[in-house]
């Protein structure tokens, strides 16, 4: 039994390994801000949202569209979805309160605990089927329709009655019958609990009937050691039933938590949606296309995390990078270059995990993998150590990168002199492009940017942070060739207003 709200054919795995560069992605794209907004105080929703975002590049177009459908249903019926999520949460919470015996590892306590827990679950399953019956007409996505149909089909009255019968038998009120074989030293082994036919004859009848022989050993009353051994044989005998029942309880619990997990993602989407809409920010369902199609085109694309932090509208960008393999962004400091880079990364991940994106429109190919290579804050390491660290980080990316991946560089390789940094950047980007990897590179390395501009490549786009004639910034990017200076002078004037330049 599967929830199938995240994938048409399989479960969402909360424990799936995150990509190796999860730390970089999280830091560079400020994903924790996004996760916090989605969680809205529910840590579990946050965990699911985080995993869905980090693993987003593993989804195909079909999955993205499938989730968009489910999400649209959720946006139509937010209270039903939140209610179901709560209901699953309560069942799990109850089970935790009640499950002390089941994890005890003693067969008899486990048997008792499992029986107890399953009695509670039967009630929950019955109620869940009720919800499915009631709500099925209000949902249209493939995901929700399949879920509700499955619940009605699988949780029949017959099935629930069968569980209840097992729970009665498992108390072994009339002694225990085991089958056994001879082990490697002729000991009783392969002990298996047997369903006693119940019509066992007494010893007298057995004798008179000349039935098959039976030999009984009676423990001496004071044989305490023997009593303990016998108890252990009994425990070995019931252990398989205990485990079978405990595992069954565990499987039901897993079903509950899996359902809760997949619902949590949509609850997170609802939370974020609420926050963005309340700021009058536009959101859209992106149009995904297959990896390799090199589509990338958007209007009013903004940095979702920045907008969540700033509590005000932020500037959006417009670009058509259809058919481009390389986007180089140059221009003024504080001109919104990093913000732009982050907004592309965020929108890409949000799209690929089936969410809406922070833009008026967003159309893009799915990338096979997303990597960020951002300049790190200055640390105690000497300059040489820093450059070394940058190259090592790039090398790790190379180890994992595949064709149709997307690589976001932010001021990379500036930790050495410009000539050397440009040369390294040139080599790296050239090789990546030849390997069909999409590169977005924010840089001050003029040699490097100019070099690519001079190649007049059809598949390259050059964006520049805008600066008006009076030096103020629009925080918008526009198409434009790399320029020699990066307007550090502007920044200087802004920070030291009114002061004369020391050097003319």
């Amino acid at each position, binding site marked *: 039994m599967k929830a199938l709200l995240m994938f048409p054919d399989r479960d969402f795995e909360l424990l799936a390994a995150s990509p190796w560069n999860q730390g970089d992605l999280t830091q560079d794209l400020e994903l924790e801000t996004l996760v916090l907004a989605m969680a809205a105080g529910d840590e579990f929703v946050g965990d699911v949202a985080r995993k869905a975002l980090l693993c987003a590049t593993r989804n195909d177009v079909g999955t993205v569209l499938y989730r968009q459908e489910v999400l649209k249903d959720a946006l139509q019926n937010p209270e039903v979805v939140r209610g179901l999520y709560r209901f699953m949460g309560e069942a799990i919470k109850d089970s935790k309160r009640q499950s002390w015996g089941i994890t005890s*590892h*003693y067969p008899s306590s486990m048997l008792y605990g499992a029986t107890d827990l399953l009695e509670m679950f039967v009630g929950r399953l019955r109620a869940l089927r009720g919800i499915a019956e009631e709500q099925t007409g209000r949902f249209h996505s493939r995901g929700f329709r399949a879920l509700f149909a499955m619940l009605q089909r699988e949780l029949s009255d017959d*099935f629930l009655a069968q569980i209840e019968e*097992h729970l009665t038998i*498992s108390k072994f009120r*009339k*002694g*225990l*019958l085991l*089958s*056994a*074989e*001879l*082990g*490697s*030293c*002729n*000991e*009783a*082994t392969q002990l*298996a609990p*047997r*369903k006693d036919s119940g019509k066992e004859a007494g010893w007298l009848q057995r004798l008179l009937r000349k039935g*098959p*022989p*039976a*030999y*009984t*050993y*009676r423990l001496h*009353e004071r044989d305490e*050691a023997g009593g303990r*051994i*016998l108890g*252990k*044989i*009994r*425990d070995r*005998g019931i*252990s398989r*039933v205990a*485990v*079978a029942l*405990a*595992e*069954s309880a*565990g499987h039901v*619990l*897993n*079903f509950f938590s899996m359902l809760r997990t997949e619902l949590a993602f949509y609850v997170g989407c609802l939370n974020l949606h609420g926050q963005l809409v309340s700021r009058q920010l536009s959101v859209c369902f992106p149009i995904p296309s297959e990896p390799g199609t090199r589509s990338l085109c958007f209007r009013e694309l903004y940095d979702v995390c920045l907008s969540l932090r700033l509590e005000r509208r932020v500037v959006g960008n417009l670009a058509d990078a259809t058919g481009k393999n390389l986007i180089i962004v140059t221009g003024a400091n504080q001109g919104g270059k990093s913000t732009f880079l982050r907004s592309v990364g965020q929108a890409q991940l949000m799209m690929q995990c089936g969410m809406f994106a922070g833009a008026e429109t967003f159309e893009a190919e799915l990338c096979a993998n997303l990597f960020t290579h951002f300049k790190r804050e200055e640390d105690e390491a000497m300059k040489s150590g820093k*450059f*070394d660290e940058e190259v090592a980080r790039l090398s790790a990316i*190379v180890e994992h990168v*595949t064709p149709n991946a997307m690589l976001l560089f932010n001021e990379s390789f500036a930790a050495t002199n410009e000539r050397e940094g440009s*040369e390294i950047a040139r080599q*790296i980007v050239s*090789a*990546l492009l030849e*390997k069909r*990897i999409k590169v977005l590179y924010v840089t001050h390395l003029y040699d490097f940017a100019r070099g690519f501009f001079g190649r007049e490549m059809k598949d390259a786009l050059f964006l520049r942070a805008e600066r008006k004639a009076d030096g103020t910034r629009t925080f918008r990017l526009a198409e434009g060739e790399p320029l020699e200076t990066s307007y550090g002078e502007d920044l200087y004037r802004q920070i030291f207003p009114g002061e004369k330049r020391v050097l003319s």
Partner: protein
Amino acid sequence: MTFESVLFERDSDRPAQGQTGAPAFFKDLNLDQVVEAITADWKEYDLTAYFHIPLRDVGAVTYRQEIVTDLGEKPVMMAVRVFSKQMREMRNLLAQSKEVHYFNRAMQRLFLGAAETYSGAVGKLLADLRQLRLQSRGLIAFREYLTEYAESVRFQALAEETKRLKEELSAIRYALQIRNGTITVRNYEGEIDYSVAVEETFEKFRKGAAGDYRVDIPRWEGMNHIEAEIQKRVALLYPELFQALEDFCTRHAGYLDGKIAEFDREIQFYVAYLAFVAKLQPAGLSFCLPQVSRMSKEVRADQAFDLALARKLLDKKATVVCNDFHLSGAERIFVVTGPNQGGKTTFARMFGQMHYLASLGCPVPGLRAQLYLCDRLFTHFERQEDPTNLRGKLQDDLIRIREILEHATSDSIVVMNEIFASTTLKDAVFLSKEIVTRLAEVDLLAVCVTFMEELASLNDKTVSVVSMVNPENPAIRTFKLERRPADGLAYALAIAEKHHATYDWIKRRVRE
């Protein structure tokens, strides 16, 4: 050819009685660590002594190298390992059987288990070896021996009886009814398994692991009187079968063949070594069977490394730097100089280790190697000053070196590390020149690690080897030793090169 042993082709190749203990140079070359690591998982075979016996004869070395080559074929190694595993099981069962001797039926059953495991092991090994195209004289001869043994009446009878008894005992299934302090033993009458019924009901929820619902199934704590009482009653249900079991144990008390037991132990010498090799290979380290000679002193090796260091570095996930060396013509002595911590001593150890391992018939570290089969190996490494020794350190050093020179012949190998480091430079230069000249006169192979560059060009027998640093950043040790220094790269490119992040590297590294 009659089969003697997989380690020694002829009885006369075996070492004289009483020759045990590690050779004197073991510690200096870190071979003690290597052997400890190799044999660690094979303690029960007591293999260490085999690693203390070098072979002096090229033929004896090739005899082993052939076996190594055969064992390098996966199916051959698999066959041997399967056999050893079964033999180990057999020994365990025999030990257990002895432990429970006061419970007859348990003891007999364990003995039967041991005999069954043994005959299974022999049968399986023979069947496996017959499928294989063996090349080594040693394994071919063993296969012949095994064939004869397996066809013997004695073994056939053992195998058949074991099989029949085991089948009949295993087929028994009985019922135990436990109620109020009584146990009733009777025949099982086909009642259905209750836990299966439960599992079937919940099948639809089943997926992956359910969580940690292991029970501590009370462990089988060995035989006890209750089990004995149960067995007694099962025996009442099947009296003839239990009598047959008792007879079997008397008739086949001494079933184990001596040669086969010896093979099981001796073959572990190779198995242990090759398992050790297999641990290092995934890190890109190569091993090869060296060409050994007692005639040519033109030794060479490509991509060789220090085995003891490699093991330690791999534990720390660090990379191992490989080095090449060669001597040609009249060249006999490597004089190793260069900055400290640059891999000089490692180079010296590596040279010694490789020659010693070659003399065991083992594969040596490196992609290719041609090595000299020496008569003796000597090392001179710096010692901690011994306060109880009345002689001074310099004097002590000289005495040790004199002993080496007294015993060394033109067929020997000498490894010297940082000689005379504790004396004045003038003395050290003088003494070292003397010693190296003497070594050259003997015409033996040697490695001398030193800080005295004067030695490097002493005569036509010495070859200078230098541990390299990155010329742009002398703080970076490359651990490469070369016969001449190489050119440096520009700093940034050197870093990019170091991380394999240049254009060429990325083109090569990105997976399609």
